[in-house]
């Protein structure tokens, strides 16, 4: 079965629809829903898995917030669930485990797989007019490589010494001397890497090779550009992390000393070999993990661009500058990793170089922000739930982007490095930015995925509460950072310098507890709408994108016609048609009402 769709796909998109239908009928439940080769099922598998891990990551965050608000007090209800054994009290080793695993789960099991795995898989073939991915079997494997990672990380909570406690950055030498959990963490990370690599090879090939007739690169929606650039970043950066992961494993298991200085001792253990350099880990780790920061935001930027244009009923402002700035972020993204290491002991002259490249990477982000504002200017904005989430992405990304300039300024970074200013910055980018964009994307593409719409009013309630509360949780972190409040301290109030910040932390923690609780609204709305949501047609939002021309939900092979593409995805409010949208597949009118000729249908939109 596996070779047939692949062979079909390589010839041309959607030519062998009949063949696919046969498969759909003969497939067993296991083949259809579990070991499926269909990109849509794989996308949904990623979506459901990541949503469950999102919940786990949120619970871990609550443990952190409890400890910061009420240090050493037993945590009610959740305490024992997040690993505190002694009647709910969180001991310091559990606290360091919580900060480590919260970040690990959110980054590697939620944000990266939900963007590339869930939305990438689901949307790429639909948006470019292909019947499936270029390599369906590889695609299935990319999901199933996540499971051993889930098992490795999930089981690490139960091994002797608990899950990894070295921070999500796994800095050597601490990580080399840490307990069993750290080995499982490294194995889990490597498996996630394999999954991402399989996915990225597939995405690049699919986007380059399998576009429908007429779908030129510059007619691709921004979502696809975001996915494409992300895939390129992953393909080039991931091998470094994988290699570094194996070196760290080898240091731990076979007594090598890549990341250990001569005569290294820690945690009452002595290393068998030395002569290595702890900073080497940081260089290798950030060489991947800085591009990974963009892997975690570029697809979200793409999806937000699509949603903003659709509900502004107006073409995306500056399509090409948007594409070029994506490429600019990707290119510069490879030469800024050192800004995580300004105070690490790296040569300060090198720090200055990284400072300049870091300042420059703010530029493409600024260009994108201005273009989003330009998209909304002069439109007819419809404040649907996805639109509100998309606008909040722009609003929050401004905060997260601007706070980055403080850290890029090396002298300021001396003080705010490893303080809550950093925590504020990346939560504004990753939670208030990416996670909000993902929420918006779920509301936006849910009708396509399940043929039903989610409840818009409850969606707005969910948005309102999430938006207000997330700002209450994360905005005061800037102020904490100005007060030099450090990250990852189980009891910061132990220092007189930070004792007066307890009331702010208590306020933030209570907002965090409520923030997590109100996600119930989303969960209920999601599950209810899966079964009882009002049915919708192919194009409930009157959007232009190709995916909206397929049935909702699309069947095996996606399109029930051969898509032909005549224009870009953002032709809203075009004077050539009566309605305010102009789908990419709609042939140009024989003679346009404005009298303009259409003799050049391939003209760039």
């Amino acid at each position, binding site marked *: 079965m596996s070779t047939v769709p692949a062979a079909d796909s390589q010839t041309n998109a959607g030519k062998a629809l009949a063949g696919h239908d046969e498969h759909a009928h003969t497939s067993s439940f296991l083949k259809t829903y579990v070991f499926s080769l269909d990109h849509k099922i794989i996308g949904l598998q990623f979506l459901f898995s990541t949503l469950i891990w999102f919940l786990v990551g949120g619970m871990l965050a609550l443990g952190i917030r409890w400890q910061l608000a009420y240090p050493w007090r037993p945590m009610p209800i959740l305490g024992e669930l997040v690993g505190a054994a002694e009647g709910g009290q969180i001991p310091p080793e559990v606290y360091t485990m919580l900060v480590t695993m919260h970040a690990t789960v959110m980054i590697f099991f939620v944000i990266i797989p939900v963007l590339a795995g869930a939305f990438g898989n689901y949307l790429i073939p639909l948006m470019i007019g292909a019947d499936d991915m270029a390599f369906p079997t590889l695609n299935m494997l990319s999901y199933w490589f996540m499971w051993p990672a889930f098992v490795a990380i999930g089981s690490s909570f139960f091994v002797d010494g608990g899950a990894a406690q070295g921070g999500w950055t796994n800095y050597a030498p601490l990580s080399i001397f840490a307990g069993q959990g750290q080995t499982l963490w490294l194995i889990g990370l490597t498996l996630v890497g394999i999954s991402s690599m399989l996915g990225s090879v597939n995405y690049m090939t699919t986007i380059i090779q399998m576009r429908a007739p007429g779908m030129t690169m510059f007619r691709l929606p921004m979502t696809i550009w975001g996915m494409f650039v992300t895939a390129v970043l992953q393909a080039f950066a991931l091998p470094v992390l994988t290699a570094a992961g194996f070196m760290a494993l080898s240091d731990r298991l076979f007594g090598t000393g890549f990341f250990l200085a001569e005569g290294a001792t820690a945690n009452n253990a002595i290393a068998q070999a030395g002569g290595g350099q702890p900073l080497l880990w940081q260089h290798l780790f950030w060489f991947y993990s800085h591009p990974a920061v963009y892997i975690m935001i570029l697809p979200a930027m793409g999806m937000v661009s699509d949603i903003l244009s659709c509900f502004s009923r*107006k*073409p995306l402002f500056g399509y090409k500058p948007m594409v070029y700035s994506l490429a600019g972020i990707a290119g510069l993204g490879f030469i800024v990793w050192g800004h995580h290491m300004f105070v690490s002991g790296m040569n300060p002259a090198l720090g*200055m170089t990284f400072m300049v490249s870091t300042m420059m990477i703010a530029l493409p982000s600024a260009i994108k922000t201005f273009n989003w*504002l330009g998209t909304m200017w002069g439109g*007819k904005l419809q404040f649907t739930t996805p639109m509100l989430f998309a*606008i909040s992405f722009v609003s929050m990304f401004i905060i997260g982007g601007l706070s980055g300039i403080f850290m890029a300024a090396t002298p300021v970074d001396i003080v705010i490095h490893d303080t809550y200013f950093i925590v504020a910055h990346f939560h504004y980018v990753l939670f208030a930015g990416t996670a909000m964009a993902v929420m918006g994307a779920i509301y936006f593409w849910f009708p396509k995925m399940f043929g039903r719409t989610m409840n818009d009013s409850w969606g707005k309630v969910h948005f309102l509460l999430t938006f207000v509360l997330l700002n209450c949780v994360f905005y005061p972190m800037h102020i904490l950072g100005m007060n030099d409040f450090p990250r990852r*301290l189980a009891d910061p109030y132990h220092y007189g310098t930070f004792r007066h910040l307890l009331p702010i932390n208590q306020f933030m923690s209570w907002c965090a507890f409520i923030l997590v609780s109100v996600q119930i609204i989303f969960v209920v709305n999601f599950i209810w709408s899966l079964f009882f949501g009002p049915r919708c047609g192919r194009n409930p939002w009157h959007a232009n994108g190709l995916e909206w021309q397929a049935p909702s939900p699309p069947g095996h092979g996606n399109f029930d016609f051969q898509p032909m593409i005549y224009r870009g995805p953002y032709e809203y409010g075009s004077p050539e048609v009566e309605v305010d949208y102009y789908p990419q597949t709609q042939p140009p009118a024989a003679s346009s009402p404005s009298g303009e000729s259409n003799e050049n249908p391939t003209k760039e939109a």
Partner: protein
Amino acid sequence: MSESQTNEQQRKWLPNFWSVLFLMVPIFGVATFALAPYLNDIAPAYFKRPVWFPKDVSEHGYVIDNLFMFILWLTGIVFVITEGLLFYFMWKYEANTNTKKVAYSHGSHSLEVVWTIIPAVTLLFIAIYQMDAWAAAKMRAPDIPPIVEVTGRQFNWDFRYPGPDNELYTSDDIVRTDGRLYLPVGEEVLLRITSADVLHSFFLPNLRLKQDVIPGMAQNMWFTATETGEYDIVCAELCGWGHYKMKARIHLVTRPQFEAQLEEFRKEKNTMRVADRPQD
């Protein structure tokens, strides 16, 4: 969907509601920073000290604080303008209130040029503006002998002062493990910092200094303290389960007091016998 919003009342206040919600972002954003330093005055029962930068007792600290404030003002202005525009567009172009035809525009080349060049110049300016402060803090080490060697270890800071010979690693060195670092004010001091096991970070909030310490690698840190007093030394790099309690204190004293303190340490060392060591 917008079609469902047929209710007349909803049409009137809901659009404004959402734009006003987003207007709250710059208002509360600016208000938070404006209010923070006064929280101590407003509610002294909750905020025992001003919620702002920790007190600065270094000669170079003002450069860093000023740079922070400069960037805060600059980004603050950009923040208010962009968030303000976002609010204005949401207010003005809401589908039900905007009766005009949509602006069928794919972009503007001249606008792109403007909003590329202005941020580029600004960012380059910040980049060049700060270089000197960075070089002063991390690159221009003074040519003086180290006054103390600081060693981070799980979970304590050890301090080793050179003895009367003014040279480290000789038999007359004084090693203190009691977590109290004494240094003179009013003169430039050079610290040699390193680690005995894992990464730590030697963080002095009141002196605006931070440097990760790395096993197998000695680094220099230098500063001039301006005021006597006692302040926290914080470990700012995760170093294990006891990271949170890896606390020490820096005692900034006058030169004569510093000499006297070292003399006292020396006496203590000379009278110490093996039997004095605490039994496990």
